[in-house]
Each structure stands twice: as C-alpha cells, then as structure tokens.
C-alpha cells in the first residue's frame, strides 16, 4: 500500500483500495463504477457526498463519458482526451499523488479514475450547501446596499470584485488550519495599498499555526498587533460595499471561508465611529452624527463613573435644585451609590446578553421583564434611585449608538474599572484612569499605523479622510497615515 505522498497506482481496483484506506469509516465518500470504450476500460468516479452538486456530475461527467464512443490509446489518454474533448466541467486538472487526491476530494472535486492510467482527473463540481447572499443584519443602514457577505468565500470575493472592476484588485489565497484547511484570502488594490502593510498581513497569516479556523475572529486575534488591547485594532464588516470602500482607501481586506465577516486592516480609533452610509449623505449630517457617536462613546464609557464620582466626592458641582432632588431620592435607599450603579449596570448587561442569546420569539417577553422589572419596579421597591436608572439607561443607549460592535463592547468592559476609580478616588481617579488609557492608546499600532492618528501623530491632510467618512467630494484625498502611494481620489472637485 502506498502512502499519501506517493504516486497513484494504475489499476482502478488499487486506487479504490487506496481511497477506502485513507477514508476508512467515512460513509460520505461515494464511488460510482462504469465502463467506457465498449466495456474494455473500467472507470470509477469518487466524490464526497454533499460537497458536490450531483446534477453536475451526471450532466457534465457521466453523460458525456458514457455516451461518447472513445478508444483508449495510451496512458496519458485520460488526462488529455477527456479533459480536452469529453467532460464539460469548467475546472479540471490532472492529479498524480495520493495527497492531492484527498485535498481535492475534500475540496468538493469529483475524481475520475480509469484503469491503466497513472493519474486521475479532478473535476470541479463543488456544491456545498450554502446560502446565497444575505441581508446585512449586524450593520444595517438606511442608505446603501443591503447585501451582506455569506459563508462562501468565492461568493464573497465576487461581491467585492463586482464593486471594484480592476485587475489591480489582487486576491491572494492561502490555507490556514492544520485540520480545518480554511481558505483565507487577502484582497488589496495594488498601487493603492501600502506594500509594507500587505507584507505584514501576509507574513502574519502565514505564521498562524492553529488547527482550526472557524471564523474571521480567530484570525483577527492571531494577527493583531496588541493581542491584549481592549480596543479593536482590526475592523470587521459584513458589508461588501464597506469592504470595497476600505480597499479604495488603501486598506487590506482579509476574507475567511465559512465566515460572513471579513477583516479590514489597518483600522485606527476613528474608523470605529464611521458607518457605511456616512459617505452617502450630506456632509453636515456626517459631521453631526460623527460628533454624536463620539459623545456617545464617552457617555457609554464614563457616565456611570462620573455620576458616582460627583455624587460621592464633588457635591458642590451639582446645581442646588438637582442636589436637593438627588438627596431626597436617595434618602431612604439601602445601598451605597457605587453598589447601586454596579447593580444596575450588571442588570443591564444581563438583559443585553439574554437578548442576544434568546430565540427571537421569546425576546419580546424579555424586553417586558427588563423594562418593567428592572426599571420601574427596582425604583418602587426602594432598591435604586430614579437618577441611577436614568444614568444607566443613558449609558446603555449610548453604548448601542456605536456602529461598530467591537468598539462599543470595549467601552462596555472599560466602564467598570472607571466606575471603581470614580468610587475610590473621585474625578481625580477618573482623570488619572483616562490619562493612563490615553497614553496606552497613543502607544498602540494597527499594522504600523498609529492607532490614534490623525490626532497623534497629527496628520495634516488626514483630518477629513480619517476622522470621519465624508462624501468623496468633500474628502478628495486618501489618508496618508495608511498609505502614501496614491493620495488623490478626486481630481476635479468642482463636479459639474
């Protein structure tokens, strides 16, 4: 018996034996025997059930082979004759080794063996059960395409390719995962994307030595610059239009097979405050809504801690009338304010997590419980004060504003250390914590791009292109912090 690396045997029986040995106890391997050349040559095809499209096999392989009169000439006959004149399958290649045989079988190819041939023919009839393009659920927009990526990487690349019709859009393929053998593709536009960044991503992807890659998140964590950084340094998106936009900005898109989310790198802090539709609406609105998002981030990060700090340490900062109300509403509450806010924050996180995990049908009952029990009833039972509920509700709402899920999650996590700082050291603690965070943030990089650019280092021309996503007419240049090859996007700004 030959090993996997060896050449294939000539006889169909031996080949069948070989496959049965490699795929022992794999019931989804299917063989189909038939004869050609008037019964003189026995052949068989093998494929993995479910990985192929059965109609393709019968229509494009079996039918032409069995209905054509052929005369076997020599050993290379199979490869040349059938590939060139008989089979109507689009992609076909000759396979010589047993290792390739397993790869192709698992990749959804149908293998054709003929007696007496030292090679076999791999015919692409891949047809996994896959959904076609879906609708963007995670990043919905009011304006713009509603398409989203799907699990099939070839559909995903096609969705990008459809939006960028230039041969300069390069899509490089590699397999990652020793057992999952997941296809991962790097897409970038040559001449716009920075070669150094592309090289970095390529080499980091190559150095991944994991067995399973199920989602782009697995890869994200392997190729990030600072694996322990609480802030995301790689953007992810399910939107092909956003990916195309990112490519045109000189960024690199990493697609993972079986994952409807692609990665966009490099991504700096301000990228996480841009939504897809920002580039399609009035520039005034873009500016306004970006400021609102920034504000929401600060509220979501700091509102509970500032509330705690001011009520505990800095009562003089509260206007008299408000202070009177606050004191009155807190006069018969059992818990210290820190504990109270913590309680309500945790309650909110419970609701939020339960809402994410619950089947949609039960979700509405959860929202009733959440709204009534944790809002009104918590106040009426004398557990928390209405002001705390207001602060927690404002915080919760603000944390939903961010268009990028991973950034709002970062602020959700960091909220708690800030609350502890606020409760133990007041505003001083919050300022110290904020400074520490800021120092850390200016120190991190995303594939060589400073995370806080264009703030620090301040990029002179990058403000309009990096701080917010203005419509193209108002942001005619690519940010230089990401690439310097090709800066001009719009040559004539005057339009008509």
């Amino acid at each position, binding site marked *: 018996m030959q090993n996997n690396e060896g050449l294939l045997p000539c006889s169909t029986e031996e080949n069948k034996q070989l496959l049965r040995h490699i795929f022992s106890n794999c019931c989804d391997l299917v063989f189909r025997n038939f004869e050609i050349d008037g019964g003189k040559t026995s052949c068989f095809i093998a494929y993995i059930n479910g990985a192929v499209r059965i109609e393709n096999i019968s229509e494009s392989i079996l039918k032409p082979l069995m209905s054509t009169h052929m005369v076997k000439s020599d050993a290379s006959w199979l490869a040349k004759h059938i590939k060139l004149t008989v089979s109507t399958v689009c992609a076909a290649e000759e396979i010589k080794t047993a290792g390739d045989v397993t790869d192709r079988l698992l990749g959804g190819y149908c293998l054709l063996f003929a007696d007496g041939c030292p090679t076999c023919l791999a015919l692409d009839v891949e047809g996994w059960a896959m959904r076609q393009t879906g609708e963007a659920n995670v990043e919905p927009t009011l304006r713009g395409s509603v398409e989203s990526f799907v699990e099939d990487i070839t559909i995903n690349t096609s969705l990008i390719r459809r939006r960028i019709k230039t041969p300069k859009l390069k899509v490089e393929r590699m397999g990652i995962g020793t057992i999952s053998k997941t296809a991962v593709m790097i897409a970038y536009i040559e001449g716009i994307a920075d070669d150094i960044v592309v090289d970095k991503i390529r080499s980091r992807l190559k150095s991944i030595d994991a067995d399973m890659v199920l989602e782009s998140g697995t890869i994200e964590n392997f190729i990030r610059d600072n694996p322990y950084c609480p802030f995301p340094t790689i953007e992810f998106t399910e939107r092909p239009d956003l990916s195309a936009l990112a490519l045109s900005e000189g960024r690199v898109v990493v697609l993972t097979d079986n994952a409807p989310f692609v990665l966009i790198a490099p991504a700096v802090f301000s990228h996480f405050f841009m939504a897809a539709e920002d580039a399609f609406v009035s520039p005034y609105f873009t500016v306004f809504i970006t400021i609102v998002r920034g504000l929401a981030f600060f509220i979501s990060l700091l509102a509970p801690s500032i509330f705690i700090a001011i*009520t*505990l*340490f800095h*009562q*003089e900062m509260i206007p*008299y009338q408000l*202070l*009177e*109300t*606050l*004191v*009155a*509403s*807190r*006069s*018969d*509450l059992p818990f*210290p*304010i820190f504990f109270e806010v913590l309680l309500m924050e945790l309650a909110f996180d419970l609701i939020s997590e339960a809402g994410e995990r619950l089947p949609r049908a039960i979700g509405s009952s959860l929202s009733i419980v959440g709204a009534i029990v944790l809002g009104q009833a918590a*106040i*009426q039972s*004398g*557990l*928390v*004060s*209405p002001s705390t509920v207001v602060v927690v509700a404002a915080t919760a709402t603000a944390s939903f504003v961010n268009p990028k899920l991973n950034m709002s999650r970062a602020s959700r996590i960091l909220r708690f250390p800030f609350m502890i700082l606020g*409760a*133990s*050291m*007041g505003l*001083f*603690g919050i300022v*110290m914590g904020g400074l520490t965070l800021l120092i850390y943030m200016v120190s991190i990089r995303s594939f060589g791009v400073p995370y806080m650019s264009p703030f620090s280092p301040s990029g002179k021309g990058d403000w309009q292109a990096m701080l917010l996503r203005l419509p193209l007419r108002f942001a005619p240049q690519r940010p230089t912090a990401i690439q310097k090859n090709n800066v001009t996007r719009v040559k004539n700004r005057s339009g008509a």
Partner: protein
Amino acid sequence: MSMKSIKAIAKVVLICHMLLLTGCWGSMELREVNLVTVLGIDSAPDGEVEVTVLVSVPVGNAMSQQTKSSVWIGRAKGNSLEQALNHLNATSSKALIWYHTQVIILGAEAAKTLIKEFSDLNARNREMRFSQSVLITEGKASELLDSPANVLDSLSQEIEGMMRNTREWSKAYASTVSDFLSAVSNENADALAGRISRVMTASNTSSVNRQSMQSAYWQDREYGLVYTEGSSVIKNGRFVGFLDADQTRGCLWIINKVKKGIISAQIDEEMVSLEYRVAKAEMKPEVSGDGKITMNIKLRIKGSLSSSSDDKSPLSLADTKDMEAAFEDAVRHELAQAVEKLQKDYAADALGFGCVIKEKHPKLWKTIKADWEDIFPNIEVRYDVNVLLRRFGTTTESIIKNDS
C-alpha cells in the same frame, strides 16, 4: 530578586501612593448630607457668637422623587464664629455641607464686632462659595430667619430671587462674598454691603404658603415679611449704618453698579419717568494749588421714556431737552444726598474716592492717607449729569389727556 520584579513592585507602591492623595474617606453618600442654605450670624450678649442656619432637609422616597424639602432651623452658640458653626453638629442629624449656602446674613451687632472673623472664615474656608450674598440686617439675624417663606419653598430661595432682582431696580445693593472681601480688604476705601430687613405685617397675600401658614398661626398674628432694599456701610471693618433705597441708588450710580430701573422727575406738577438702561460714571479728582481736593463726578445715562406729561412731546427737541434736564436734576439730587449721607453721617468713603485719588495723585495720597477720615467729609463734590433720552416707547403722546 530580579530587576523586573523590583520594577513591578515599585510600580505597585507608586500607584498605592497615588491613592493616598485622595481616597474613599473623602467621599460622602448623598443620603448623609444636609444642605445649608442660609447662615445667620449674631453676637450674643455674653460675648458669644450665635449662628442660625436654615438647612434644607430633602425628604422623599424612591417612589415619588421628592415630596418637599423641609427646612430645619439650627442654632448654636460658641466663643468664636468657627466654634459656633462647629457646635451646630450637636443638633444636626446629618453632615452639614456649605457648598450651596446662598445667603449670609449678619445681625447689626455682629456686623459691628465680627466682620474680621467673618471675613477670615470666608477667605479660608474652601466649602464657602464667593458667590454667596452678604447682607446685614437691623435687628438679629436669628429673628429674621424665623420669618416664613412667602411664596417659594424656602426663605433662601426667596432671598436669592430678591438679590437677582436688584439689577432690575438698582435700589438695593447685592454684594457677594467676593465683592465683600475685596471691599473690606481695600485699605484705601470703605465698603458697601447688602441690606435685608423685615417688616411685621398682618396683610394677606394670596400665595398658597401664606394661607397654609395662616391656618397654622393665630389668625390675627403678625408675621415677618422679608425684603431687601438699601445697603449698609462698612467702615474700617465695622458696620456703621444703613443707606435707604434712594441713597443706595445714588451710590450705585457712582460706583457703576446700576443696571436697569426707573427714575422719575417732576415737570409742571406732572411726573415723567425714564427707564434707564445704560449708565456710566467717572470720577476725577481735582487738586487746586492750595491742596484742596474737589471730586468731579461725571455720569452719563441713556434710557427711554416710560411715561411723559401731556404738554411735553418726545417728538419735540425742546421738550425732550426739558425732560432730560428734569431727569438730570433728579439724578443730581440723588447723588448729592447719598454723598452727603456718607460724608456727614458716616464719614465713610464707601464710594472709593480714596482709590481714585491714589490712582491719579499717588504722591498726594501718601501725605493725606493717614488723615483721610477727616479730609473725606469735607471734600467738595461736583456733579455733571447728562441724560440722553433715546427712545420713547411705542406711543408718542399720553393715552389719556388731562384736559379732555
């Protein structure tokens, strides 16, 4: 121990040191505080200091946000002001916080003896705000603070509102702690401070509070009604006396604190009124050869006519001039009586003549500074008042004619 672990330990120690700068012990739960809104200071007969505080005790529960703050009137005595304040804790149920004190009222006696102590307390204490109003009252502050609030929830809110209103009529002086401290610390001049008074009245008003109060008190009992009008004069760190409403405005014209208000003048037995909006005064000392000092006060007022007489039309230039002249006379009279009161009755340079002389004639000031108290009452003051009638409202003539 490796260098790395030493560094790590050093970092932890340094961060712990940071915690020493401030910490949990500085915190105060909101349910543990009472808000002092008004502080009254009196001197007790036996040389002690008596303080009276109005403390807002917000009550309520979580269900209904806030019912209504009840006001606790706290009293304490002590050898010194600070001690008396400290003794308040003996009767207070919660910690007293002073950030939101809006008004400080000094009884007349206390204002004579305790201003130095009071100023020091305010300047050193970091809980007191410099925006609080400082007022002096005729009798005892404690008696004044017994008065019920008229309309609003608490007396402090009412007094604060009255202080805000002074800019509408400028016959009362609203001095804040910062004004007060800078005035009493100025060694070249004396100072003005606010004044608060109380009348006993049985008259009824239609406010809800008044009704509820009447049902609680004896029906025919008189109760105090607090009002702010006029100002008080402080000389060499001691309170010396009050100025009435007109005198106060006379002073405020000169020190440029007049914002808005009405001045009336008589023309041919009829009253005409001016609503002034802009007033700018300037003091210029003049020293004659023999060292005699004359103070020239130049006052420019701009305003609009708010009521006019029949036979004076604001459309006529001559009539306008007449009216302006009448207003000028009225203002001049007000200025003169205010200055005379300060010069003759109190000999207190509350208008800051000394400062102006020091600015313009520093050498002269050095020689006369010591005797200023004697020189000031005899300084001749000249008034140059100019009223400019700029607008006459929406009608030119009076609505009702006398003759018709």
